[in-house]
């Protein structure tokens, strides 16, 4: 009856934990391993201009809008005293800074953090697809040259894709023999103008085309500018084209900053405006990235996760969540193995102190404190003190010993010795008291045995609790603690033998 109840409850807990875990790992992409890192690009746009005298300033700056293949982790605007609004017209996104009056050189910053993400494809509905054609921006001479070229290329191509590819390879071939092409190259001496010209030619062929500006993501790039690129509409979506080679697609590690031939920066009330882009790459913990992405996706679970806490509190929970792991170890050692220790959870607290002192130092300091404390406790025994005053005296002695150890090790230049201050002194005092009582009642052997047992359990808890993997799992997937809880419930109804009972009942197992 009890057993069935416990089993059902444990199953429910296990299923809930696994379901939540799977959701977080697969859907939200939280990393299963603590070592998972991802590349994060930081692009910083530095806008500089000189304010005109006595004029209101309005700066309009094009911003990336849902860049394809990337997730925006963070973006921020740095401009003191300027009012800021952002607008999004469905194709382009702008930041608008405004200020009524200022003077001298002005610098504004826009910073965006991105990471590659192939899972989040840009939904088509997010971009306007009604594509308009505007003619009339080819000079007359060039227009007829273009028409001649287009007719020629069209006869040699099957569909839009092959047409465009053929057209661009012709245009970029630059064979001087072809007058038409030479004509089309006229006045298009900068990449920007060339892309513009290409766009006009494609429009002449009644193929919707547009110009886009790219940022090339290359680590350490400073004072870089945007790279003009070409896009045409194939009836379903915009396809990118290399304006110099006709290859389709974007360059490796590049993202579309803004769409359209308008310049990224539009300045009113200022002069000498220019923008510089600098790019930095660094690797970041996948956990943070997944967390930020989950927030963007509007996941309730992440909104109410441990990541929503202030960092300091998070760090506290990083340690606290390990305590159940230690407690589970104690359950195993007590009920399955059968090791006795002083105080049920005392070893966990000692193990937490070991985290700070590191193992070897921790064990030596623990033994030193326990030894000195016991020696003084035996002297107190001789004085026949009442229980509570005696306990209080042991506590004072423990604290004084800790201070002494700190001072002596400090003088000796052993920094680690200072961490003795992190030992839980009340626990140490209780341990000393209980050990001395056991010593008196059951003899030194039993006391030392139990003391070593406690130390062994503490060391094991420390080893388990200092595992990077466990620390990562319990913090990123705290629902795993439900798994532990389920196992503890099951062990709560465990009726099998303890390992030490084999030794205890050895006389009947192996009779002589």
């Amino acid at each position: 009856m009890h057993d069935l109840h416990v089993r059902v409850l444990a199953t429910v807990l296990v299923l809930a934990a696994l379901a939540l875990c799977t959701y977080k790992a697969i859907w939200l992409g939280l990393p299963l391993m603590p070592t998972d890192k991802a590349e994060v690009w930081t692009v910083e746009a530095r806008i500089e201009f000189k304010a005109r005298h006595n004029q209101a300033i309005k700066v309009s700056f094009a911003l990336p809008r849902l860049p394809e293949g990337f997730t925006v982790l963070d973006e921020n605007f740095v401009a003191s005293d300027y009012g800021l609004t952002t607008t999004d017209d469905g194709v382009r996104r702008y930041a608008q800074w405004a200020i009524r009056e200022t003077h001298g050189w002005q610098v504004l910053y826009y910073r965006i953090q991105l990471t590659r993400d192939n899972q989040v494809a840009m939904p088509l509905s997010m971009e306007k697809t009604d594509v308009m054609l505007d003619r009339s921006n080819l000079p007359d001479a060039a227009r007829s040259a273009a028409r001649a070229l287009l007719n020629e290329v069209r006869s040699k191509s099957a569909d839009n894709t092959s047409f465009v590819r053929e057209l661009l390879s012709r245009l970029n071939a630059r064979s001087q023999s072809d007058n038409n092409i030479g004509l089309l190259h006229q006045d298009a001496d900068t990449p920007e103008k060339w892309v513009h010209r290409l766009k006009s030619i494609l429009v002449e062929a009644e193929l919707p085309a547009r110009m886009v500006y790219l940022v090339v993501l290359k680590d350490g790039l400073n004072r870089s500018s945007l790279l003009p690129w070409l896009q045409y509409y194939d009836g379903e979506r915009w396809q990118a084209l290399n304006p110099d080679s006709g290859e389709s697609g974007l360059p490796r590690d590049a993202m579309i900053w803004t769409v359209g031939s308008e310049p990224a920066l539009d300045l009113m009330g200022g002069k000498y405006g220019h923008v510089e882009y600098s790019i930095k790459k660094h690797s970041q913990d996948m956990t943070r990235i997944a967390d930020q992405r989950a927030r963007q996706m509007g996941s309730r679970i992440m909104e109410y996760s441990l990541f929503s806490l202030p960092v300091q509190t998070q760090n506290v929970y990083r340690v606290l969540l390990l305590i159940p792991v230690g407690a589970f170890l104690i359950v195993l050692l007590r009920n399955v193995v059968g090791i006795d220790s002083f105080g049920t959870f005392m070893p966990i607290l000692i193990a937490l102190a070991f985290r700070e002192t590191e193992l070897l130092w921790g064990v030596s300091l623990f033994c030193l404190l326990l030894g000195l404390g016991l020696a003084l406790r035996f002297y107190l025994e001789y004085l026949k003190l009442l229980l509570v005053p005696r306990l209080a005296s042991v506590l004072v002695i423990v604290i004084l010993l800790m201070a002494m150890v700190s001072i002596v090790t400090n003088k000796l230049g052993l920094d680690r010795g200072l961490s003795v201050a992190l030992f839980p002194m009340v626990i140490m005092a209780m341990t000393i008291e209980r050990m001395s009582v056991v010593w008196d009642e059951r003899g030194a052997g039993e006391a030392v045995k139990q003391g070593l047992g406690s130390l062994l359990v503490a060391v094991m808890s420390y080893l388990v609790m200092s595992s990077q993997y466990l620390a990562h799992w319990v913090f990123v997937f705290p629902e795993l603690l439900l798994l532990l809880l389920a196992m503890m419930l099951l062990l709560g109804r465990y009726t099998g033998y303890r390992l030490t009972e084999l030794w205890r009942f050895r006389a009947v197992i192996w009779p002589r």
Partner: protein
Amino acid sequence: MAIQGSDMAAMMLAMPARTPWQRLRKLGILGMNERNASFVLPYNPRKNYPQVDDKRLTKSMAIQFGLPVPEQYAVIEIEHQLQTLEDDLAAYEDFVVKPSHGSGGGGILIVEGRAGGHYRLSNGRLIDSGELAFHISNILSGLFSLGGVPDAAVIEYRVCQDPVFEQVSYRGVPDIRVIVFRGVPVLAMVRLPTRISDGKANLHQGAIGVGIDLVTGMTRRGVWHETPVHAHPDTGGVLEGIMIPNWYDILLMSARCHDMVGLGYIGVDIVLDRALGPLMLEINARPGLNIQLAGHRGLVHGLNALRDLDNIPQKAEDRVALALEMYAGSRQA
């Protein structure tokens, strides 16, 4: 593995060689986890624990219930009472001091007599009244109680050992432990103090446990520090074949303790007094497992058989009869 002739070894030979766990299972040895999960927790309602954890309460209930117990001389509850301690005890030549909430035999002081202004303890040590008062003060502050909560000290009649145990006991009074499940005695042993146990009858303190045949009341082989022994290490007396006097009364008293405290799984401690016969000392709601070593048999088979019974007789006499019947049946098997 060498198996030599003994009844246990014969039993072992009949079993195919398997893992130690399976051997323990087959022998019906009760483990700590199973004791707690299958018997103590389901059969012992927590609300009845105070009746056995507080020895004063147990004693007063036993008196009402008509069970013989050692006479209580004094109860010391506050430090202040220690000032008049000597006057209170003046009338008694010998007595026992124990914590009311003690566990595992801790904190028990046996005063055998007086010598000058001093008290003579069972281990031969002399202490003055200051040391006695300090010991009682330690009891009051909770040094020996479960969880260290403040306690009271009980001073009571010192049991005089029955001559039957003369040859097998060293400076202390043996006590008889009977495991009673659902009011039916299941297994019994007698615990004999040794020099190492300091006159105390607790196995983990070094006393010898000797199994008692439930039907005949005759002792069998003993176990000392978890290994079998045939003779008392201090006196040399043979442990096997001692007939416990008033055995039926002891079984009946144990069975009635179940009705008194309303706990399903208990260990009843009984001493044999030279003049007064069997006296109930205390009841344990979490009796230890070593009785299985002393009794040379596991508890599980007997306990399971009782657990599967739908009806347990109301009358203690009938339950004792049931116990003897079941024990005899299992002995033959």
